């Protein structure tokens, strides 16, 4: 459905030339939950931004439903790590921003935004300024803002990276539930291995310098995941171990 074909990305800083991605090829299947896992600076976020059309590949291409992707697609939604809700708009108006860009009439915008807020359990705070919300609630608004466009693909860039553990686990369950309810394809960037195992159908492992995909794993655990103890599951523990070994985290710590 979403094909990443030989994508490379190089950018220049005044000091040096950075090879963020080298020849990455990966197919994302319709309806699956795919995570990109790897250490910081291995190109996960760069690839996600390329998938959203926020950045362009230096080489290679993205094919979305048989057509080469150029620029921002209306069928792809993005959830940022730094949510950056606009403080001069209330929560509902923040969710409406993508609909405004599409020229949706005001009444419809309002209805769709409230519906999206209801999906993340926030219809009660539709009219408050975003800076009065907790970090977890703001992140939910970020999800609603993307969902309001009814995207076929939802790209999420370490959306829970800034949250405390309790909020993070609650939101993981909520995202998992939303995903199974809506059937949206999700591409999820994280450096938290447990989070990736809990949420994903497949996990692409990234390694850095230059950034590349070194393995793609099938998680193979049954859904829904929130109904059993994923973290204590033997298969999950083994997978966690092999991912950590593969990414070389152990070796680096020992050396």
């Amino acid at each position, binding site marked *: 459905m979403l094909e990443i074909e030989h994508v490379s990305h190089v950018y220049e800083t005044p000091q040096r030339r950075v090879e963020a991605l080298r020849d990455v090829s990966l197919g994302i299947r319709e309806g699956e939950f795919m995570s990109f896992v790897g250490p910081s600076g291995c190109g996960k976020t760069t690839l996600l931004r390329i998938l959203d059309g926020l950045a362009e590949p230096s080489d290679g291409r993205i094919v979305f439903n048989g057509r080469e992707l150029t620029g921002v697609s209306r069928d792809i939604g993005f959830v940022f790590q730094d949510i950056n809700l606009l403080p*001069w708009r209330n929560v509902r108006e923040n969710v409406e921003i*993508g609909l405004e860009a599409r020229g949706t009439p005001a009444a419809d915008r309002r209805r769709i935004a409230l519906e999206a807020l209801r999906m993340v359990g926030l219809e009660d705070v539709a009219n408050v300024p975003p*800076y009065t919300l907790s970090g977890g609630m703001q992140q939910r608004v970020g999800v609603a803002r993307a969902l309001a466009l009814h995207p076929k693909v939802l790209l999420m860039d370490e959306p829970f990276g800034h949250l405390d553990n309790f909020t993070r686990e609650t939101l993981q369950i909520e995202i998992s539930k939303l995903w199974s309810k809506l059937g949206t394809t999700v591409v999820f960037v994280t450096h938290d291995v447990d989070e990736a195992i809990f949420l994903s159908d497949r996990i692409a492992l990234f390694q850095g310098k230059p950034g590349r995909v070194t393995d793609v794993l099938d998680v193979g655990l049954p859904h829904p995941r929130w109904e059993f103890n994923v973290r204590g599951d033997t298969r999950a523990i083994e997978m966690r171990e092999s991912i950590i070994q593969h990414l070389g985290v152990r070796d680096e710590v020992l050396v």
Partner: protein
Amino acid sequence: MSGIVVAQRRRARPSRKLEPLLPAAAVAAVLAVWQWSGLFLNPILISTPAAIAGDLVQLVTRGVIFDPLAESLEELVIGGSIGIAAGIGLGLLMGRYELVDKVLSPFVNFLNATPLVVIIPLVIIWVGISQNARLLFIFLITLWPVLLNTVAGMRNVNRGYVDVGAAFGLSETDMLRKITLPAAVPYILAGVRVSAGLAIIGMIVSEMEVSLTGLGYLLITYGNSFLTGRLLAVVFISSMFGVANVMLVKWVQATFFPWIAGAAAEQR
């Protein structure tokens, strides 16, 4: 050991309670010393708070202050608001169009760096000794800070907001209207405050240097007559212009842009 801790806490408590009163106490102390100095200092030097207050009351009850005050206010409001409006307008153009910015910025930076009092003779050559000269001078001195701040505000939009606009497909016009302009408002307001402060200075200076009118006329007249009490009463009124400016900008921000304080508090 614990005894020491308790003692320290007891000593700390009253000072914390009195702390909010400290500024008022400092002002009262200075006023008291000033008043006391009147017992042995020549009143022409610095007068006394009580005498100045009395003169202030007289300026009002005898109606001496009203015409000059009205003249000053009129110049300030007309010259200042045209200057601020033009500054924001030009700033928006320079912020929006790289070309305009490149062409205008050498002139803007040069004039902003110039202590503009020096152009008063030129202004008089242009439009003669008249109210127009005073208005033109206030306009010219007001323009720059708000202009430069508007440009800076549009150039320094939080990268994350721009990303959001791009990811959600905003057109260039919408990006400007819905992201760049609102994000620049805090800068613009700060520029307005500085510009309005300069407008007040421009008002007084032009009333003293171009032609004697308004509060500038009163200042010069009382100064030349060694009426120090009245002179300082007018100085006090001039200070109130500055205070009103700061309060007005604060009010505009709190009333129309409450999100500025809200978002800033969240950053902390």
